[in-house]
């Protein structure tokens, strides 16, 4: 019967203890403490109002904690840890709304680690692992982040390539040293690691909804890059990158959702109306419980996606899509209730709720929103349910 075919659970592909060890506890504990000390809400607000929005000293400190190379091999100076470790740190950075390229640089480095030749990796990764070089990942052109929308081109010239085209919504391009992005190349697609300096490259900051994750347009007007800027593997790399990109982003979003919930619960315990804390009213309490359920679901699936990257790679992309869907739903819902249940204060700049909400809306729009990924999952579901669609439908 067809129903059995598709029904091997995600959980059954994962190891019993989810690969979690005491080291993970330590890592998360350190991250929570470090960020609450060095990146509290007032620091996030300060940077949100800053023209650049990025604190290089803070970046160096978290690089010293090893976060920039957690997931990179030890031979290039990384910590050689698993994806779960990176997901846990990103969950904490999401909680804190850390304003910096931790996510973008981690993914840029991952692309290089996966796709570069030994020589390229040896040249680029040690600086990335140490946080001396910041990478970013540029997937969007026009209004699409899918491969077939890529028009930016790398034209072979003497000694390398000449780049033309424009990438939009590139996270933290303003402060990054290295951009990893797909370019058309002799009819195919290839990932390039492009130093963000020199003639023929123009970085135009965007006015981004979320001022804790700055974006820019990067225009290439004949910029010259060396031959080894082209990473070895082709378009497949981008497909391989999607699972970690979504898993990492989902972890970050789940963390932010948990923090938005905590913020609202704290207010609901303290704010008194009608002679009692508003959290005693079921109109406040029950929606917050629904947020809690969404948040815990999002955390479970974000963890599952990271653990799948480590232990069940063939399940990773589907798990990551589910994680993005769940995290997006939880984060938007948590923020909606955060603003509404803070009442008049929730609607002001002084309440932190809007910082989370802007992160939520911007993250939703990143690398495919829930609607997009549910559509892809629906196709999976049809196939797994043993249903062969009519051609063309």
């Amino acid at each position, binding site marked *: 019967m067809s129903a059995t075919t598709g029904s091997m659970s995600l959980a059954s592909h994962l190891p019993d203890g989810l690969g979690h060890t005491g080291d993970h506890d330590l890592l998360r504990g350190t991250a929570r403490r470090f960020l609450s000390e060095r990146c509290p809400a007032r620091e996030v607000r300060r940077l949100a109002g800053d023209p650049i929005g990025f604190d290089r000293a803070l970046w160096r400190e978290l690089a010293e904690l090893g976060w920039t190379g957690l997931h990179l091999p030890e031979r290039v100076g990384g910590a050689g840890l698993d994806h779960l470790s990176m997901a846990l740190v990103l969950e904490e950075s999401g909680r804190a709304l850390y304003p910096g390229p931790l996510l973008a640089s981690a993914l840029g480095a991952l692309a290089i680690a996966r796709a570069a030749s030994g020589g390229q990796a040896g040249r680029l990764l040690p600086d990335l692992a140490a946080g001396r070089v910041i990478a970013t990942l540029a997937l969007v052109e026009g209004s699409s982040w899918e491969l077939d929308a890529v028009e930016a081109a790398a034209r072979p010239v003497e000694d390398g390539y000449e780049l033309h085209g424009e990438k939009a919504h590139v996270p933290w391009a303003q402060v990054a040293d290295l951009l990893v992005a797909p370019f058309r190349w002799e009819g195919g697609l290839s990932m390039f690691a492009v130093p963000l300096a020199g003639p023929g490259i123009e970085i135009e900051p965007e006015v981004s*909804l979320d001022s804790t994750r700055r974006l820019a347009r990067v225009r290439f007007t004949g910029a010259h890059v060396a031959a080894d800027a082209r990473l070895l593997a082709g378009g497949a790399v981008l497909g391989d990158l999607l699972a970690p990109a979504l898993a990492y982003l989902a972890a970050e979003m789940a963390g932010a959702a948990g923090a938005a919930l905590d913020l609202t619960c704290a207010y609901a315990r303290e704010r008194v109306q009608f002679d009692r804390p508003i959290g005693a009213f079921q109109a406040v309490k029950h929606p917050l419980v629904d947020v809690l359920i969404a948040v815990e679901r999002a955390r479970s699936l974000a963890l599952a996606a990271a653990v799948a990257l480590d232990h069940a790679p063939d399940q990773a992309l589907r798990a990551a899509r589910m994680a993005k869907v769940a995290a997006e739903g939880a984060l938007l819902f948590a923020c909606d209730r955060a603003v509404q249940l803070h009442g008049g204060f929730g609607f002001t700049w002084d309440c932190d709720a809007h910082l989370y909400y802007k992160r939520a809306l911007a993250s939703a729009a990143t690398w495919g929103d829930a609607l997009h990924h549910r559509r892809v999952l629906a196709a999976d579901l049809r196939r797994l349910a043993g249903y062969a669609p009519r051609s063309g439908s």
Partner: protein
Amino acid sequence: MTNPDPRELPELAEFRRDTRAWIAEHRPAAPSFVLPQSFLEVETREQFDYLRAWQGALYRAGLVGFDVPREYGGQGVSPERAAVVSQELTRARAPFLVNLLGLRWAGPTILAYGTEEQKRRLIPPLLAADEIWCQGFSEPGSGSDLASLTTRAEPDGAGGWRVTGHKVWTTMAHVADWMILLARTGPAKYDGLSYFLFPMKTDGVRVEPLVKMTGEGGFNQVIFDGAPMPRESLLGQEGQGWRVAMTTLAFERGVEGGRERGAEDLALVWRVADLAARARRDGAPAIDDPVLADQLVSLWIEAEAIGVSALRMRVPGLVADRPLALPLMHKLVFTELAQRATRLACQLLGTEAVLWMGDARAPDDGDWPRAFLNSYGFTIGGGTSEVQRNILGERVLGLPKSK
């Protein structure tokens, strides 16, 4: 955005033609600065002057005040003409009427409780936007539990009062001439409240801007430090303030600040539908997505229902079961509809939803994320959605108080 109905009465049809022509001729050119999306975000002097001039021009053309008798500067009560003006303003996407708090809340309350003198003095400049009104109800410690407010009005010994306290979320206080002020004149929670018409241009009152989550200003906190009020500031009786305030909050009129119920909601849904036809997601037109289209249809149906309910509300036989249901649910329904509609608009934008106002490439100048965030001003202000649900449950469904 209603087109003329072929069956419309000739005189009304003529009024519509004239109104449409007048608006087309006189509506002001788009300004060089960003206009606020609603009366909640009027921040700068240039925004205010632009909008005040527009309301003044409309008033002088005889297009404002169709719910106000002629002796107080209005056009005489004519809901049909009010609806026509509303529809034509919406159709032309003309700027909103800036003195909305005056038109919708202060004015009707003064007409209901004011002395003849108060009505003659205050209503005409209110309609013309020559005098702007703001509202002083909420306080930092008194939001949903409004009656717990502590701002007090103490007799000054000469028949007047002195006001001390702290009001918040006072939209347009920075440009207002008058405030409808709810203050304590006695210790009893409800019967200790009185309702005043407070002249803002006086000593002892300090207006400080608050910033909204969009970064826009337009609302304020107002700190009173023994600010004087003359005897004639009292509206209604001393100690009657709660009842008068409830009247103010209940003024959910068919004609709200010159816009007809239903028309604006439907216009918003169609603007989102228009966006869906233009926007591309993952390289395809957003409106092609069946799931998004399905959500749009739900909004469409709800907006049409608001318009039909506005007609139904005027037929007693069709609301006999629960006469208060439709008037009391209106605010909840349209504010939550607007929130979902603008949220859907952000979804339609796909990757481009990350751009904020001020970015040259932000779709529709970034209006959609801005409108979505600003939508919470309406689900929170004027009685939160939670308070509205309490009111409906208690007054319409007869359920016991949630004490």
